């Protein structure tokens, strides 16, 4: 079902679209979809529950056109229920100067160049044009003053593009430059109005249009309907207005929770070590460094930072403190949730310890699994993807304006430190329950398979690269792995995992010395990509059942601490194995049934080893 159908269904049922639907709508940039969604959403009652009410008067020097629908869709997507009050056509100055909108939350003004230009002007007297534009600006400011005297409502304005049809009608290069200077001065004067009154806000439409390469005008609609802005431009204006409204009604986010591996730096620190991370220097390391710089800028403006990483805490602490290219040192974070617990539980705990609602969080992570888990468990958290090319990470973080505030206060600037102190008192060592419902919804499949000539290379690669879930640290090379896989006294098996997010491929392997009585596991490795789903327990269950079928009476496991494999320290005991007199050796009766998690289905692959 596409987004419009979902919105229509909700409105038909008299419901506000749920958080997930609104999040999708918030990502829509197609103006045609926005206007349709806005028209449909007009069917919702103004007192619909769950949305923050906001009243917006729209005054325009032109026709408002589809702006109302786009604005409604954009505001509802952001969690607001707008009461939009369009002003009367051709009554801009009177409506504004008399503040006939009364006390609304904001006035959104749509301005076009016709308001500041004379109906006719001489291209050979650019100086006279400049004087006219200056005078119009003086008049506009006095109308604004009149409005501000009569109402406490904040007025939202924007800069104006100078249409090519105006600029290019001047054929002298020198005069055209002068005309552009006049226009830049007009826009500078509009922007300077924020210092004229705290009840005026201005956004820079000109740069937003240029950045997105949107055609600002459809000449047909301009001439026919007095619509000076194309639908694409109106969508940008609606989005900027949404950013302002979000801050105005208190829906801005306060907390940025960040993953580490492949989000704040390139690579998995537990695998490649601090020295192997991509951070700083040339591409792609410069992308991660720039992201850290931008996050630092957000922090300086009061955004509270939380670290949410599945990693060994000690390694992360050391890397953050000592890596020369790290910008975000440990103290930059008000809370550091570095452990192997589900991230949703970690974020909920961080919110509780900071005394903030999860609805004030933005969460950025490269893993679709983690983002999906958080979205399912905590739908009020805004989620940003750090998947794919890291060159886009900074834009992904800032373009939506999640953290916009109307004005920075001294409290804002001190907020990260205040929250850090608060969070220090909290105890993050508590364990959290598994989000079993989410795991069940994933439809995880484990596919064990005895090694074949096609998988031996990948299995050996896993042995060499896996550091965290690596039980004994024995790194079997390709030759040994191939030899064992062909031997009747040994077993080498690979484990693939797939779920609704896709196929992870071969993510684990086991090497077993198969004696007549005892099957001894000499190593078992699992990529950290699949940890936290109890895949390893399903692996143990499969292995023990296989040993039993082969006639063995005992399965023997080993664990040799390496300093990096703490995540796997309790694996054998979690699978039901008992410690023996020999340190690091654990045993289980092969006739036992290891309780495999019910959210993982196991289907053994039998591949031809030709």
């Amino acid at each position, binding site marked *: 079902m596409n987004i419009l159908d979902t919105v229509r269904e909700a409105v038909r049922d008299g419901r506000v679209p749920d958080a997930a639907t609104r999040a999708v709508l918030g990502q829509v940039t*197609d103006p*045609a979809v926005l206007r349709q969604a806005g028209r449909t959403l007009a069917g919702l009652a103004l007192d619909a529950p769950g949305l923050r009410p906001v009243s917006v008067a729209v005054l325009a020097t032109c026709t408002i056109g589809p702006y109302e629908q786009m604005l409604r869709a954009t505001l509802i997507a952001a969690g607001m229920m707008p009461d939009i009050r369009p002003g009367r056509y051709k009554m801009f100055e009177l409506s504004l100067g008399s503040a006939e909108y009364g006390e609304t939350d904001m006035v959104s003004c749509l301005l076009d160049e016709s308001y500041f230009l004379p109906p006719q002007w001489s291209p050979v007297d650019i100086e006279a044009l400049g004087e006219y534009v200056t005078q119009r600006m003086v008049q506009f400011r006095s109308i604004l003053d009149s409005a501000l005297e009569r109402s406490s409502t904040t007025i939202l304005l924007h800069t104006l593009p100078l249409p090519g049809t105006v600029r290019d009608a001047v054929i002298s290069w020198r005069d055209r430059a002068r005309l552009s200077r006049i226009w830049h001065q007009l826009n500078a004067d509009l922007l300077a109005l924020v210092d004229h009154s705290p009840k005026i806000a201005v956004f820079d439409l000109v740069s937003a249009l240029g950045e997105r390469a949107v055609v600002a005008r459809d000449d047909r*609609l301009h001439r026919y309907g007095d619509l000076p802005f194309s639908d694409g431009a109106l969508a940008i204006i609606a989005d900027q207005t949404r950013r302002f409204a979000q801050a105005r009604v208190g829906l801005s986010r306060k907390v940025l929770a960040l993953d580490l591996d492949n989000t704040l730096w390139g690579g998995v620190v537990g695998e490649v070590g601090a020295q192997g991370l991509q951070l700083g220097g040339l591409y792609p390391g410069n992308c991660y460094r720039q992201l850290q710089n931008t996050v630092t800028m957000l922090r300086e403006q009061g955004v509270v930072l939380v670290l949410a990483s599945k990693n060994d805490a000690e390694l992360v602490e050391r890397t953050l403190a000592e890596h020369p290219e790290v910008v975000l040192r440990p103290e930059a974070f008000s809370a550091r949730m570095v452990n192997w617990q589900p991230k949703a539980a970690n974020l909920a705990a961080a919110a509780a310890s900071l005394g903030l609602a999860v609805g004030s969080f933005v969460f950025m992570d490269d893993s679709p699994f983690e983002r999906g888990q958080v979205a399912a468990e905590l739908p009020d958290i805004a989620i940003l993807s750090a998947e794919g090319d890291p060159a886009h990470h900074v834009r992904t973080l800032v373009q939506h304006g999640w953290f916009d505030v109307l004005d920075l206060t001294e409290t804002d600037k001190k907020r990260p430190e205040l929250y850090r102190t608060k969070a220090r008192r909290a105890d993050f060592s508590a364990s959290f329950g598994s989000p079993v419902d989410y795991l069940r919804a994933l439809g995880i499949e484990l596919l064990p398979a005895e090694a074949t000539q096609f998988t031996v290379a990948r299995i050996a690669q896993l042995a060499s690269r896996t550091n965290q879930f690596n039980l004994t640290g024995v790194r079997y090379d390709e030759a040994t792995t191939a030899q064992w896989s062909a031997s009747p006294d040994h077993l080498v098996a690979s484990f693939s995992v797939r779920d609704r997010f896709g196929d992870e491929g071969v993510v684990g392997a086991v090497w077993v010395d198969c004696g007549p009585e005892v099957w001894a596991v000499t190593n078992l490795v699992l990529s950290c990509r699949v940890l936290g789903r109890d895949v390893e327990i399903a692996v143990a269950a499969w292995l023990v059942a296989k040993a039993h079928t082969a006639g063995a009476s005992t399965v023997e496991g080993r664990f040799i601490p390496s300093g990096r494999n703490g995540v796997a320290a309790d694996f054998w005991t979690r699978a039901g194995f008992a410690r023996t007199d020999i340190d690091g050796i654990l045993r289980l009766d092969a006739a036992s049934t290891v309780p495999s998690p019910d959210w993982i289905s196991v289907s053994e692959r039998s591949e031809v080893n030709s």
Partner: protein
Amino acid sequence: MTSPHTVEHTVLTVLSQILATTADDLRANPVLANYEWDSYSSLEALAQLESDLGIRFDLRAFNAASTVDDVIALAA
């Protein structure tokens, strides 16, 4: 290239949504003046059809369209 059937279907879908009616009603009674076909709704239809069909209308011809069939013919 968009097939004539798809064009007709798109035009009927878009117009029925904008004019708050059904495709069947539009087929049975294709004169646009019988619905709330004003300058606003016609511009909305124009923008929506251009977006959905990837075409550009001549506004003069579009304004001259008085029936659903006229619009389909212009879009085809």
